[in-house]
Structure formats: C-alpha cells, structure tokens
C-alpha cells in the first residue's frame, strides 16, 4: 500500500484545537479566577464541534459521516479483531473509532449547551451538575479514544497520532483526497474565535 493524503487540514487542525481547548477547559473548570478562560475555551471547543459536524457533511471523503459510520456490528467485529490480532486496516476511521467520534461530537454539543445555560444562569445548580456529568463522560470517551489509538497503532503498525498531524496514512491511491482544503481551515480560526467570544459575552 502507498502513503496517501487522508486527513484534510480542517479535520487535523480541528482535532488538535479540540484537544487543546478541552484540556484548558478541564483544568480551569473549578476555578473562579480562571472562569473567563474556562468559558472562552469551552466556547472555542463547542465551535469546533459544530464545525466538525458540518464538515462531516460537506468535508472530504474520509471526514464525511456517510463514509466512515458503519453499523454497530462492524464496530464490534473490529474490536474483536483488535483482541485477536486480526483487525482489518481501514484507510480512514475504523468502525469503532467512528462511534468515538459520534459520542464525542454529541457529548461535546451537550457540554457546550449545558455550559452556556449554566453561565447564563438559566437553570439552577442542577445545570452545573449536569454540565460536570457530561464533561466527565467526554473525558471517559477521550480516554477510550486514546486507548483505541494506541491499540490501533500497534495492531496496524501505523502511528495514528502522527497521521492526525501530517494527514498522511496508508491506503490505495484511489482513496486519497485531492487536497488539504486549507481555505476551510483558515475559516475555522475566526469561527472558533467568534464562538469563544459568543460563549463568554
């Protein structure tokens, strides 16, 4: 198999910005001193999630939901394959990782919505409890995702984390995407800034 371009720039930039904003929001969550930083990071995080949902519809082939989301049976078969050392290699997301993506995006939207409502004080203390619960669920999925990336990397002899940096992965030439879509990545940055500002206003 060849090395081909698989992840476009908006997907990669969004991925790492999402990780960074989640980390910042996580460590500042319990502090009033860092409240504004927390809300800005949470706003940026939610903006990236919303962008990724849209990009899952209009993005390049390996970023599109219709391309990588398969039935639960496929995900279970892939996980079984990981345990027995016979997991098939996927050029884009594997079927189990696809569910991590869906879980992270839906929980991410819920985290943003509950955080916004709590910050606007549009609910009681229970809203903050809900927000914390949702964010803990996000962290749990992140940890599962990290374990999956480590296992998948070992199983396929392919550094999946590096692929998310460079965009290049193993695959057949016909599966390659045509370009990195840098204009959309350029749009992502002001959009994220807008989302952060909007959340904190």
């Amino acid at each position, binding site marked *: 198999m060849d090395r081909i371009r698989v992840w476009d720039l908006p997907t990669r930039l969004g991925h790492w910005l999402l990780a960074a904003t989640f980390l910042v929001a996580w460590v500042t969550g*319990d502090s009033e*001193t860092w*409240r504004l930083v927390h809300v800005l990071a949470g706003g940026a995080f939610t903006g990236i999630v919303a962008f990724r949902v849209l990009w899952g519809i209009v993005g390049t082939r390996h970023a599109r939901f219709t391309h990588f989301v398969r039935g639960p049976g496929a995900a279970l078969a892939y996980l079984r394959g990981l345990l027995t050392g016979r997991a098939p290699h996927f050029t884009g997301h594997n079927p189990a990782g696809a569910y991590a993506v869906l879980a992270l995006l839906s929980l991410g939207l819920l985290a943003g919505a509950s955080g916004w409502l709590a910050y606007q004080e549009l609910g009681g203390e229970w809203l903050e409890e809900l927000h914390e619960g949702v964010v803990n669920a996000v962290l749990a999925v992140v940890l599962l995702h990290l374990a999956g990336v480590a296992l998948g990397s070992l199983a396929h002899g392919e550094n999946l984390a590096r692929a998310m940096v460079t965009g290049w992965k193993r695959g057949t030439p016909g599966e390659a995407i045509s370009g990195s879509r840098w204009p959309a990545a350029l749009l992502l940055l002001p959009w994220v800034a807008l989302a952060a500002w909007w959340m904190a206003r």
Partner: protein
Amino acid sequence: MKRPVLIALLLVSPALHAETPRQLLDTFSAEAARAQPGFAPSAQRGAALYRSAFKHSRAMPACTACHTDNPAAPGRHAVTGKAIGALAPHANAERFTDPAKVAKWFHRNCTEVVGRECSAAEKADFIQFMLERS
C-alpha cells in the same frame, strides 16, 4: 424502604435537602464546638473575615471584590463582570438553603480568595454575619 422508593427519594434529594440558613449555621457551630468547646458564632468575626484583604488572589483579594462591602447588595464577578445576587438571606431568600451549594462555594471561594479551606468556626461566623440586618 423499598428500593424504588429509595431511588425516587435520591432523585428528588436536592429539594429534600433544603434547609434554613439558621440550620446551616447550627450545623457549622456544632462542628466548631467539637474542636473548640464553648464556641459561639460571632457576626463581628464574620464581618472581619468578609472584609479581610487576604490578597491571595490578585483579581479577588477579598470577599468584597465580588460581593461589595454590603452583603445585602447585588455584586459583580471581578473576573467575568457577571451579576451576582446578594449574599445576605434577607435580601436573597435562596442564599444558605442548599447544603451542597454552600459546601461547594465555601470550598471554591475559601481556597481561591482566602488561600486555604475555611474552618467550621469561620463558616459559622460568616453565616452569623450574613444573618445580621444592618
């Protein structure tokens, strides 16, 4: 108790946990008296704590940085600028009625503003001061 009843009670427990500021004050006073026999809460010590400039935090050197000099007046978050309801129960009936919320905010504000956890005696003094009508 049957399990479904217990679960139902747990689900509505925030509502069941509502207390009066006086009950919370008594709880903290009792805890303080265990460490310090004869302890009686003091509004004066509470006021001193409230107005003390700890200067542990640059943005929030004292309670008054957000809650103003008058606990019965609405405040403003020193970092975000968001409005904060009055602290004193006679100005804001919700205050000091939810033990979980009280515990959360004493923890958060004591560690960030005072620079350490507050003692039960300090919490009792603080609530005693909040209950005073000036």
